[in-house]
């Protein structure tokens, strides 16, 4: 038996996460993401190729289930395509928040790409709804029996609301696919939490395979200082974010700060989407950090006090304000509109997310300090505003990955969702420091992991007790040694090993018995065999006497 692991996406790259693991004969797809950087065939995982290699007629019969870890598009973006276009009709699992929030993410992205590039439509809004309807929601630590042999369970992963690490077990083989996770709690989410499981394989993200991050407080302070400086100078702050996740985190930070500093500058959310998302956050308190859970009945932290009602025309209003606008990388939409308006004034401030895809305005702003951005032939924007790059990331750093790997102590590790050189570094580290074989396959490569296999057998109570008794004796001996009360034992290496007999009968399951029980069952007897050494004189004496006897016997027989 082995776990066969085929990486369809996020192999030696970040984007379109998709891993298919064959565990105990069951094929499970973990995540089904899209790549935001490509707009050709590489946009989605190569499903057709995988299907051909499995030799199955269709995806539904090839896969036991699909499990989605969280609602980010690089983890779920290809799902409607996979179910509605490729025709996968089997079970799909994701957590409650992911099921609730994923349609927004998918629809938002579908609209943006449609507007922008006039791309061929891959799937429609109806496809998204149909796809989401098939999804079976998961709760944390709920053990779901996918079929007779396959069991999955979700663990809290931090990262974004509803993110989960997935444990899968079929037969004796067990594995964990982490998705994206965060080992330190942030303002609204807790840290990843998982049981100490016995694993053959751990598939972990490795976005920050080489980075160890410094304190979060310093970065938060820096951000608040920049915003405060801007608004007190009468400037406007544009915070382009995705609707979910960072927006809530940053808004909590600002709302808190506003309260403490007694600021009255309005904070706006541009999109209805974000307001709706806030409502979801309020309903899904159970998935946030412990601090919020403890206090939400008194004060729901997603009831932002300083967030004001917003209308699109407000971007022309004079005076300072803070605006959250989507999309995050200023690739279009309202954030681009606001950017056009506000970028020419040096009083204003634009914050940029930690990562921007090449080709977006965000990416241009990040690389160097441009004074002019050309949107197209006729539109140019003079950029005079200040630019602040956010250094918040909901991903774990290198130390976190090592900590989790050490905690779980799997037999093998596979790295995905990272950049090749950093992954190579982390692989070395895992192999040398933790002594676990580690792989980081590229896309469409597969890795085979050997697993331990156990035979299930019945045994009698007596055998178990006799084993336990041996072990008990052993531990007693050890204790004596430790306390120095007993005499020194020579027999310490004999770690409570017990003897038994395996009885195999035709048409019956094999059974392990104690010797005594076997004697009873089969009507056998015990025959002792003793080994005795003899001194050479005794041998001689014995041999001599025997020889004499033999001679006598011979004589006797001759006489007869």
């Amino acid at each position: 038996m082995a776990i066969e692991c085929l990486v369809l996406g996020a192999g030696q790259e970040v984007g379109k996460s998709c891993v298919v693991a064959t565990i105990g004969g069951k094929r499970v797809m973990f995540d089904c993401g899209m790549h935001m950087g490509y707009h050709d065939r590489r946009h989605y995982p190569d499903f057709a190729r995988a299907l051909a290699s499995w030799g199955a007629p269709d995806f539904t019969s090839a896969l036991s289930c699909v499990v989605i870890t969280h609602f980010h598009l690089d983890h779920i973006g290809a799902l409607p395509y996979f179910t509605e276009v490729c025709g996968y009709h089997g079970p799909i699992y994701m957590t409650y928040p992911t099921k609730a929030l994923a349609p927004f993410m998918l629809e938002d992205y579908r609209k943006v790409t449609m507007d922008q590039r006039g791309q061929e439509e891959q799937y429609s809004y109806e496809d998204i709804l149909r796809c989401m309807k098939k999804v079976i929601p998961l709760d944390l630590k709920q053990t779901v029996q996918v079929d007779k042999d396959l069991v999955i369970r979700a663990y809290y992963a931090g990262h974004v609301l509803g993110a989960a690490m997935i444990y899968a077990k079929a037969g004796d083989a067990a594995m964990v696919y982490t998705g994206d996770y965060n080992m330190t709690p942030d303002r609204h989410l807790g840290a990843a939490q998982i049981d100490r499981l016995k694993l053959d394989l751990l598939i972990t993200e490795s976005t920050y395979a080489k980075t160890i991050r410094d304190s979060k407080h310093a970065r938060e302070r820096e951000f608040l200082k920049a915003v405060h400086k801007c608004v007190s100078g009468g400037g406007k702050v544009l915070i382009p974010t995705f609707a979910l996740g960072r927006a809530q985190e940053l808004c909590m930070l600002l709302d808190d700060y506003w309260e403490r500093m007694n600021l009255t500058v309005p904070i706006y959310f541009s999109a209805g989407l974000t307001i709706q998302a806030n409502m979801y956050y309020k309903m899904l308190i159970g998935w946030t950090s412990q601090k919020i859970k403890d206090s939400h009945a008194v004060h729901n932290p997603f009831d932002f006090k300083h967030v004001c009602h917003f209308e699109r025309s407000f971007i022309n209003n004079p005076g300072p304000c803070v605006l959250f606008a989507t999309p995050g990388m200023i690739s279009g939409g309202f954030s681009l509109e606001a950017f056009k308006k506000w970028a020419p004034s040096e009083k204003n401030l634009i914050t940029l997310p930690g990562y921007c895809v090449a080709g977006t305005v965000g990416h241009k702003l990040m690389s160097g300090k441009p004074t002019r951005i050309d949107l197209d032939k006729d539109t140019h924007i003079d950029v005079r505003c200040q630019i602040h790059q956010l250094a918040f990331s909901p991903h774990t750093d290198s130390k976190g990955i090592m900590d989790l790997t050490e905690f779980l102590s799997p037999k093998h590790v596979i790295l995905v969702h990272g950049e090749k050189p950093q992954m190579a570094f982390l692989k070395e580290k895992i192999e040398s420091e933790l002594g676990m074989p580690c792989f980081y396959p590229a896309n469409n490569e597969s890795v085979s992991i050997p697993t331990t296999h156990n035979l299930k057998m019945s045994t009698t109570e007596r055998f178990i007790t006799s084993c336990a008794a041996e072990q008990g004796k052993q531990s007693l001996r050890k204790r004596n040694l430790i306390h120095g009360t007993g005499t020194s034992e020579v027999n310490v290496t004999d770690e409570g090993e017990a003897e038994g007999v395996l009885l195999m009968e035709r048409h019956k399951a094999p059974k392990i018995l104690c010797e005594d029980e076997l004697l009873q069952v089969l009507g056998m007897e015990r025959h002792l065999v003793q080994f005795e050494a003899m001194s050479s004189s005794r041998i001689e004496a014995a041999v001599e006497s025997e020889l004499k006897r033999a001679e006598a016997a011979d004589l006797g027989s001759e006489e007869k």
Partner: protein
Amino acid sequence: MMGELVEMHREFVRYYGPDTDGLPKWMEGEKLNEFPSVLQKAVTEDKGNGLISLMPLYSSLKENDVILFSDLSSLNDMDEDNEKLDEHAMDETDSLLCRHSVLRDDGADADEKILFLCNSDDVTEEIERISFICSCIISAIKSGGSVLIPIGRLGVILLLLELISETLHSSSIKVPIFMISETAAEVIAFTNALPEWLCKSRQEKLFSGEALFGHVELLKEGKLFLFPHLHSKGLLAAWKEPCIVLCPHWSLRLGPAVHLLRRWRADRRCLLVLEQGSDAELSLKPFMPMAIRVLECSFLSGVRAAKIDTLLGVLKPKFVMLPEGLKSRYSSKERPWSFLYYSKGKTIELPNLQEDFEVHLATDVALGLQPRQLNETTAVARLRTKLFVSSGQYQLAAAEKQSDQSKWHLLQRDAVDPDRLLPALQEKGMVCSFAADDKSAGERSVLITSPGYALVKITSDRTVIYCDDERTSKHIYDALSSVCNGI
């Protein structure tokens, strides 16, 4: 339902006498017609469908050994449902549904077959009961009276809140609803933040972006007020009669309910909604005489007796523990499980269910075994292992060391035959012969002269090998074990 209504009225008359105010308003003909769904819909036969929604939950409990019904109230309707038990066990559609649910937890394609909790008969009944209470409340409000509801059941309160507000809205009456309890704010906040624990239809609300319960809207619109105490700041400002008040305590001995009942007891337009079960007469005694109308209602709790068989059929336990009081009513005749009856303060000994233990044998150990065929159907192999327990399972791993050679023994079917030992030894290239025996002692000796000197003494239950050379003695042992029918 009609029967219940009549019963309720009878009770009403019994407590307050026929001369209180004639028939209560809601018992009058035209009022009755206002609740057609309550009265006209025949109570459909209970098919145990309510369990369907619990199946995913129970499927993880399958193959349990003992099920303990701890709550007596869960068997409250034993009598009336008892006759239906057998009939249900035979109901094919039921078992089909069950099987389906067990195999696939709550598979997406099984949606049509699995009924939501809210669709099942019990819950429909419960909702009807609550809508009846609701209509009584509305008529009290219409007559200008206030309503006091000292019921502690959260589920009932949440449903009541939704239904009352709907009815108030549809009949365009504006009265404030107060929830006066120290836990009110917390409870209301919590109920809207735990979608994972709600029925499927409520979960759908989450996925379509609505609030889980109607009270979120009510709070926002200023129709529902939450206060921790009667003397809370702001309560007086918001207070307006007639109003609807939900507050503890159902015993009518503590909490805001005491004060409010004192205030309204003389007003025959007002209504007090009580839960059946506690002694109403006793509860109300301190407030006598009173003119306030009292509505006593019972609510569903626990699993209905009719559903026990369906449940047990799915779980397939070996034993079921029931309270002693049910011994006569529920017997294990023709059922594959047996019942144990418990009573307070008495210890019940459960029969030991585990004859066999299950162990996991590592493949490397299994491959290292040297089985020996005893006869055509039986083979045995010696096993030397270490026992581990990991996550509740016994695991046998390879032993590190072979056993001590100073004393071995053979397990055999027939006694060792010394006559067969000789050829076996010779086969191994040893020169040997029988030594003269003292046959009366039942002892035979074999003398080996090459490759080394050795002496083997055999009795019926013991063989002693005298030899200085370890290799030779091992050869002798091997020869011995090869002639013995055993291991």
